[in-house]
């Protein structure tokens, strides 16, 4: 039985039908009918961020930490425009979002009306799909489709633009039970012939390597991945987006490949004879110089998005399908009559590299650094102190993010929330708030830099006032660290526009101004107590760690170089000796 109601009421009913429990919404003129309807919803908590970008990042963090679709709602014009970075960020990382933008009335669309912006036009390249509603009656079907498109196949953000006369107009509401999209039918099952071919290659390989990414997380293929790795004793390298897909304390986990991968990880990627690539897109930050990437290997490429296969690197065995189905199918085939794994000497070789070239850091710049607080040490202590707690690690972007990748050991799925493809500074804090909204019992930590955190620091108010006790650990080195690192290595130490004095702002006072707990750490001895105090505090907390200023993330693959040619990463060998003219020439090419 359909029911007569306004578009705004129907919109809320659609969200309720989709199981939405929290929505990040910033109101404004033409969005008011929708916010008014939300006021009566018992199911949906509306959280007011302090900036629309923060709202979309929060919805994104919620989606990453829970696997559910995140929802953000904003007004037209500037409200819609402020969502762009958040939407692009979710698009690059294939995160399911439904972003609702209010729009001026259909009668004045196209007249440059107050707070009018063509948001569907603007977001075509950064959404999986978008809608501009013209009549209230279109609303239920559009919402049903939007949630379906956002969460299925390769997930991604979908935007719905709702003119004010649509939300005020009336319709007979009936929520469709299913969608009918002729042009959208994702392929989930891998072609059985291709799967058999993969099985045959895997069972014969001497130096196989699983190179896995965000597709394992979005496909929920943790068990299938672990089964395959353990059954055939295949080492696993997880990309930054794939982090948390495989337990990092497992002996088969060999780290994150690419620009800041460990030497042993990149050596393994280079020497493998069979690269089993699942839910990855051969991103330039992983592959380095494409021609020499995994050049000794046959490549099996599994992805739910056919357009990813062969995009950057041709695959010997392309398999279109989702990670869970395809890996599950491969494991089932292998179990029927699997050969014994032949990888013992391969694993031993990787372990030797691991022993010879471990991730490491330490005083090396000169006098006065003994006893200094190193950013890597801060991450290691966060790791130690959260070992026994359900923890979600969020990061900002830059050195803080790479150190979190290198020195935090993730143990469970969806415990990692970090901006991958777009590399969005200012993502971490709002994303942490979203993650906390979805996982109220988890300890949610944002590992931040002093640069990134200032891009959305206003969200401390959102955390405080909505009772999200997120913890921000700032690796405060007084620089835009990654920019400074590139300037140090490739631009003759000319620190153009990358210096941020450590003491400005005073992050402790700033935290307190927002009603949060704030504390400062200047020497390693103070660190554990400060972190513990922050983690045990019942509200949001900020730990300002004044770390060594000119520390670099190593190893590092110079842009354009092969990934087995790394700067740093060799204990006792200073980077300055590795940075010869040849490396610099490649960077400038």
């Amino acid at each position, binding site marked *: 039985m359909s029911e007569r109601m306004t578009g705004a009421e129907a919109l809320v009913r659609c969200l309720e039908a989709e199981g939405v429990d929290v929505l990040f919404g910033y109101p404004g003129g033409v969005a008011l009918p929708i916010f008014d309807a939300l006021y009566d919803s018992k199911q949906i908590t509306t959280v007011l961020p302090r900036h629309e970008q923060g709202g979309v990042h929060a919805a994104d963090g919620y989606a990453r930490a829970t696997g559910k679709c995140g929802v953000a709602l904003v007004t037209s014009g500037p409200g819609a425009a402020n969502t762009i970075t958040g939407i692009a960020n979710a698009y690059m990382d294939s995160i399911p979002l439904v972003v609702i933008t209010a729009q001026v009335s259909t009668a004045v669309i196209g007249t440059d009306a107050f707070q009018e912006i063509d948001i569907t036009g603007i977001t*075509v390249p950064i959404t999986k799909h978008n809608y501009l509603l013209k009549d209230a009656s279109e609303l239920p079907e559009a919402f049903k489709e939007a949630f379906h498109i956002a969460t299925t196949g390769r997930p991604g953000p979908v935007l719905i633009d709702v003119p004010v006369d649509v939300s005020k107009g009336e319709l007979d509401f009936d929520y469709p039970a299913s969608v009918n999209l002729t*042009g959208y039918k994702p392929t989930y099952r891998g072609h059985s012939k291709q799967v058999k071919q993969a099985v045959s290659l895997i069972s014969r390989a001497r130096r196989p390597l699983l190179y896995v990414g965000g597709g394992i997380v979005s496909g929920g293929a943790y068990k299938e991945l672990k089964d395959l790795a353990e059954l055939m004793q295949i080492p696993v390298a997880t990309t930054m987006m794939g982090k948390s897909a495989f337990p990092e304390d497992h002996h088969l986990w060999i780290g994150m490949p690419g620009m800041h991968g460990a030497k042993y990880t990149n050596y393994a990627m280079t020497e493998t004879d069979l690269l089993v690539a699942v839910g990855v897109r051969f991103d330039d930050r992983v592959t380095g110089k494409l021609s020499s990437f995994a050049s000794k290997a046959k490549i099996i490429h599994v992805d739910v998005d056919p357009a990813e296969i062969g995009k950057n690197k041709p695959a010997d065995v392309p398999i279109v399908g989702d990670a869970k189905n395809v890996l599950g199918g491969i494991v089932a085939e292998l179990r029927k009559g699997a050969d014994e794994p032949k990888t013992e000497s391969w694993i031993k070789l990787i372990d030797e590299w691991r022993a010879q070239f471990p991730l490491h850091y330490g005083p090396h710049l000169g006098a006065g650094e003994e006893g200094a607080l190193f950013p890597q040490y801060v991450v290691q202590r966060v790791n130690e102190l959260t070992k026994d707690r359900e923890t979600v690690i969020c990061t900002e972007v830059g050195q803080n993010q790479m150190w979190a990748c290198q020195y935090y050991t993730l143990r469970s799925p969806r415990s990692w929330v970090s901006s991958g493809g777009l590399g969005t500074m200012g993502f971490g804090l709002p994303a942490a708030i979203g993650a906390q909204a979805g996982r109220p019992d988890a300890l949610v930590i944002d590992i931040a830099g002093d640069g990134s955190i200032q891009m959305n620091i206003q969200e401390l108010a959102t955390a405080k006032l909505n009772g999200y006790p997120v913890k921000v650990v700032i690796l405060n080195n007084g620089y835009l660290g990654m920019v400074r690192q590139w300037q140090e290595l490739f631009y003759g130490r000319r620190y153009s526009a990358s210096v941020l004095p450590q003491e400005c702002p005073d992050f402790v006072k700033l935290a307190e101004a927002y009603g949060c707990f704030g504390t400062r750490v200047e020497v390693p001895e103070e660190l554990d107590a400060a972190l513990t105090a922050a983690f045990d505090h019942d509200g949001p907390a900020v730990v300002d760690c004044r770390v060594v200023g000119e520390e670099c993330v190593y190893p590092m693959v110079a842009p354009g170089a092969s990934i087995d040619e790394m700067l740093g990463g060799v204990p006792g060998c200073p980077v300055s000796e590795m940075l010869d003219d040849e490396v610099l020439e490649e960077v400038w090419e």
Partner: protein
Amino acid sequence: MTHTLSVVVENKPGVLTRVTSLFARRGFNIDSLAVGTTEDPTLSRITIVCSAADTPIEQITKQVYKLINVIKVHDLDPSESVERELVLFKINAAPEKRHEIIEIANVFRAKIVDVGKNSVTIEATGATDKIDAMEDLFRAYGIKEMARTGKIALTRGRES
């Protein structure tokens, strides 16, 4: 290499923009474009002639196919399909030259659609090379204006 893509899409506002902007941002050049309805009023056919330099054409066909409103994408094989363009030429034609021009038009089975004091307007359809050949010949007389549609194409009926 030049390809002719036949893209069947839902007949909805904004779909053409989605398709063409995808070509632009993925670095493919559109040489010609024709859009029209199909036998099914809910569907439109977009025929795109595009050249792909280094990137394989599959990259763009797969990306286009990912668009929600796109139903089918065909990379047409010229030997397996019928391709046509429509062209209008307005040619300088003093009365004494008119006859020659009309003769050329007849050879190409083109139609005279307008005659002015000093010009003749000719309509022709055909494959791209035929149109190109006519254009070459008419240039000698001076083409005042020319309008060409994008190419439209269908696969040949295999069963018949």
